[in-house]
């Protein structure tokens, strides 16, 4: 029982991390109707920026205090993501206004490849350590109930809390603010939103910047846990099934979807995996998403997709 709970909690934590990345997807889709395949690449790019800036700040500026150096690096990385958002809007999105979704999706595929190459050109392709002071030691919970207690990673716990906070803030943003409303209008219909005076390009820069911020947070947390390396981009691809499950337009859906995938993956790997020779994690999330697509394409919380004649 204890082992089961450990696996469960481990899955929840992993799921939280997926959700962080999925949040970026949902943001961009909700606000611009674009399915941003490049979200994973953005996470990697942001993480690389953060890791390298954190290395360079002490060397170049001479700030030795860890916390201050990290803070400066964070600001720098965030600024870089905002510039990136602006460039993507100027060079790519602005010129593909009102193209079909498939064109935009392929454009984000192109951006993915570009970012992958660019990030590694700028920052190098080694594995980089990212140390933002996240606690590495484990936490033993429920030691009275289960023998030896349940092992919970403190780092994952912090990540979960941060993710939950992000979700709360973003949900409020979309529901309660005028900008949030404008973003939802743009997601519905670019041309219509333009025609009532919503400044499309400015909105898109805002959205992609926020998504960049989310990518940065996700990148830092993931990078702190795994080290910043190229495979981070592939892990981010896992976030796609998460948004399918949760619904492409739902911020809380990204969290729930992430948790389901995280738990499902871990549990299936431990209990079902050995029957098939292991390694189920590669495809579990995707097949689950596939089943959802057949039964309930809009996901758990998304809006129903209606096709009009």
């Amino acid at each position, binding site marked *: 029982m204890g082992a089961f709970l450990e696996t469960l909690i481990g899955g929840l934590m992993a799921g939280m991390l997926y959700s962080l990345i999925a949040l970026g997807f949902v943001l961009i889709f909700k606000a611009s109707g674009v399915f941003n395949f490049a979200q994973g690449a953005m996470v990697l790019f942001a993480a690389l920026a953060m890791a390298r800036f954190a290395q360079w700040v002490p060397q170049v500026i001479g700030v030795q205090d860890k916390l201050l150096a990290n803070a400066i690096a964070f600001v720098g990385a965030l600024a870089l993501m905002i510039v990136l958002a602006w460039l993507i809007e100027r060079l790519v999105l602005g010129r593909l206004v009102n193209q079909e979704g*498939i064109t935009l999706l*392929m454009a984000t595929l*192109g951006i993915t490849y570009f970012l992958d*190459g660019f990030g590694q*050109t700028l920052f190098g392709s080694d594995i980089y350590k990212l140390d933002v002071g996240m606690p590495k030691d484990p936490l033993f919970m429920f030691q009275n109930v289960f023998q030896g207690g349940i092992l919970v990673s403190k780092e994952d716990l912090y990540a979960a809390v941060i993710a939950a906070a992000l979700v709360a803030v973003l949900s409020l943003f979309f529901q309660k603010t005028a900008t949030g409303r404008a973003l939802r209008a743009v997601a519905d219909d670019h041309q219509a939103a333009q025609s009532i005076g919503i400044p499309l390009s400015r909105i898109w820069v805002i959205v992609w910047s926020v998504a960049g911020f989310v990518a940065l947070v996700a990148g830092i947390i993931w990078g702190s846990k795994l080290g910043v390396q190229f495979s981070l981009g592939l892990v981010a*691809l896992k976030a796609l099934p998460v948004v*399918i499950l949760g619904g492409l337009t739902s911020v809380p859906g990204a969290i729930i979807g992430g948790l389901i995938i995280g738990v499902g993956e871990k549990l299936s790997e431990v209990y079902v995996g050995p029957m098939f020779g292991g390694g189920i994690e590669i*495809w579990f999330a*995707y097949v689950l998403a596939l089943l959802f*697509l057949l039964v309930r394409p809009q996901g758990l919380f998304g809006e129903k997709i209606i096709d009009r004649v």
Partner: protein
Amino acid sequence: MLYRENGQFKTSYRADQQIFPIVQDRIAIALLLVVAAVVIPWTAPEYLFRAILIPFLILSLAALGLNILVGYCGQISLGTGAFMAVGAYAAYNFTVRIQGMPLIVALLLGGVCATAIGVLFGIPSLRIKGLYLAVATLAAQFFTDWAFLRIKWFTNDSLSGSVNVGGLQVFGWPIDTPVQKYLFCLAFVVVFALLAKNLVRGHLGREWMAIRDMDVAAEVIGIRPVYAKLTAFAVSSFIVGVAGGLWGFVHLGSWEPAAFSIDRSFQLLFMVIIGGLGSIMGSFFGAAFIVVLPIILDNLPYWFDVPIDTALASHLTFMIFGALIVFFLIVEPHGIARLWSTGKEKLRLWPFPH
């Protein structure tokens, strides 16, 4: 002046319906085939076959298959690598487990297996489209990645996880030297291109394009979306499966599942986008582009005496690919094929401006 259609009047529908109705085009294609089948085998260096021509031929075949699905029928697929893998491993199993299985039959049977898997993973397209379908096809990709890695039966219980084939021959003629391999692939490509062209210019092709352009109106004129979409998946997967078999048997000789990973899927999708969606010729343009570009980038520093280390070169390749995709989508969403036909239009008027 050279390219005028003046005087070329068609007196029958049949003549108007040909693949190459303009005489100059027919001459050009005939010349191309002669060069490809006769001149190149005699003159080209071995390196050219192994590094460029054979991969180009096989990948254009795969791109052709993918173009039918994505370009003609409008169903996005990110799992092409999976179907290539199925074709390759199925052909391998037929060869290894059935004594005396002829090579061509094995490859075609590999294609049939890929068709079955393709239709299975194409079923979601009946309910979902666009990006949702993309995610569904990714399921195919990752599932087959895992299946060929973990299920020992597929690799004939190979210890290393990779399989190899050797001693290829057709009716007693060995397929061993690069030239022989090249001619073998060329034969496949020419035959399949012809069959594919016939399909897309017939009423099935029109069904596919109707579903792509406006599926509700297509239903109203009596087209069954289920039949159209599933046949698109079927035909596409068959061609891709055969290409996969060729890739494994003829080009690689020995392979592991990583040869057909998601990078391959993306690569093929890029070929189809850059080359031209909905164009048979476009598949060839795209494949040529993507096969040749990394080689140029790798060698560019040596031609200009500017040393770039290989890691940087590969990063630059990624960047250029990505930038080109975006460029084509913005400037010419119909790819090189459209640039080509626009060029031909200008050529018809040349030397007059209009």
